[in-house]
């Protein structure tokens, strides 16, 4: 069974024992199947997006689409008009 705990940490996750067993066994199957890719000679540029459009420009004008109140109304915790978070520096 592969050890996935480093990847859990990267993804800010902590899996239960049952989840970890299932994810590890699936990951093992998937990685094994991914090994097929090395047999393919791919001497081409990567294709990241299928559109041939490079960039979309608009006027450089700030637009306010969502109000402060609307954003705050979705915040799990708020205080005095700000989103509240725990101390980030000790």
């Amino acid at each position, binding site marked *: 069974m592969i050890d996935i705990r480093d990847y859990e940490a990267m993804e800010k*996750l902590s899996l239960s024992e049952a989840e970890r067993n299932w*994810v590890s066994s699936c*990951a093992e199957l998937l990685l094994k199947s991914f090994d097929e890719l090395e047999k393919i000679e791919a001497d081409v540029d990567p*294709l990241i997006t299928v559109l041939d459009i490079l960039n979309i420009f608009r006027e450089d004008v700030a637009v306010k689409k969502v109000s402060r109140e609307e954003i705050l109304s979705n915040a799990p915790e708020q205080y005095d008009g700000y989103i509240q*978070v725990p101390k980030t520096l000790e």
Partner: protein
Amino acid sequence: MNRVVLEDCIMQKGIPVTAGSKILENFISPLTATVVNKLLDHGNVIVQRAKMYEFGIPNFFTDDSDEIPEAIKVVKDGVADYSLCNDLFGKYRRNAAETGCCYIHPTYGTVSRFGLIPLVSSMDQIGVVCKSIPEGLKLLSQIAGNDLEDGAMFPEKFYDYAKNKQSISVGIPESIVNKADQETQSAIKEFAEKFNSVNVDLEYFDVYKQVMMILSCAEISNNISRYDGIKFGYRASGYKGIDDLYIKTRSEGLGVETKLAAIMGAMVLSKNQYTPYYEQATKIRRLIKESLRFDAYDIIVLPCCISEDPYENLSLFALPNLVGLPCASFSYKGQGIQLIANVKNENLISTAWEVCMA
């Protein structure tokens, strides 16, 4: 006036939108998706929102083909004329065809994703569940067209899906069709007899599922990093410090399939595995695009099922997503089949559908 159902990943201002995830519990959408505004502008009525499994990520290792998503059920049962959803991994295409509905996956970059909860940005595309392909294209023509709010779109403002072509040639990947059950093989053979048909070799088909899995997990891992319990959605209680808040929130708020996708994404993007997995998959994605020969055929026909293993079946649905092609699935002679055309050639799929249903 059409009755339309939206799957719970398409946003409507002032309405809870969760994409089927606890992590978006209590999230009230601050905006309305472009497709919704366009639907309303054309006099359609939104009758319901459809439940979905978390972010539309299926279990890749358990056959759940008998669990029909609500977005398909509502059209099948006549509750709605259409529903809109985002089929990335083929479950909707297969289930729609197997329940007598159709699913139209439009050309990438023709329907705005503004207001669609993103999952795999280079493949996300809102599609239409409908009763017939021509009807589905009528609705699609109302919602397609350039939108400056979505940065990855073709410039056309409108698409004319009605233009016709007299004679259509179909490409049949025989080696793949032969993996389907006998009834499906017969249905595809009968379908092919109505057109000029040629045998095609879908090069790289054997690795479609791997390429699809690597690229989608990498993008899922990026896209779900926004769910951190800070600005919106679920926040765990009893955390000790900021890191604990992130970890507790995500561990409690995300389901195990999403966790698998995130962890696979972290793996294929990590320093040692980026080149053999992620970069190699992006290169093969180009090879797949360049391997298609739409000068030799107009549409490719594929079955909707070749195996009881969902991961094997993923290969059947990967091509439109990897290359941005339009595709439609439907039932023909009681068997699920799908037609794939070149970019912006939805009309050829519709013409073929009309010929075979005549």
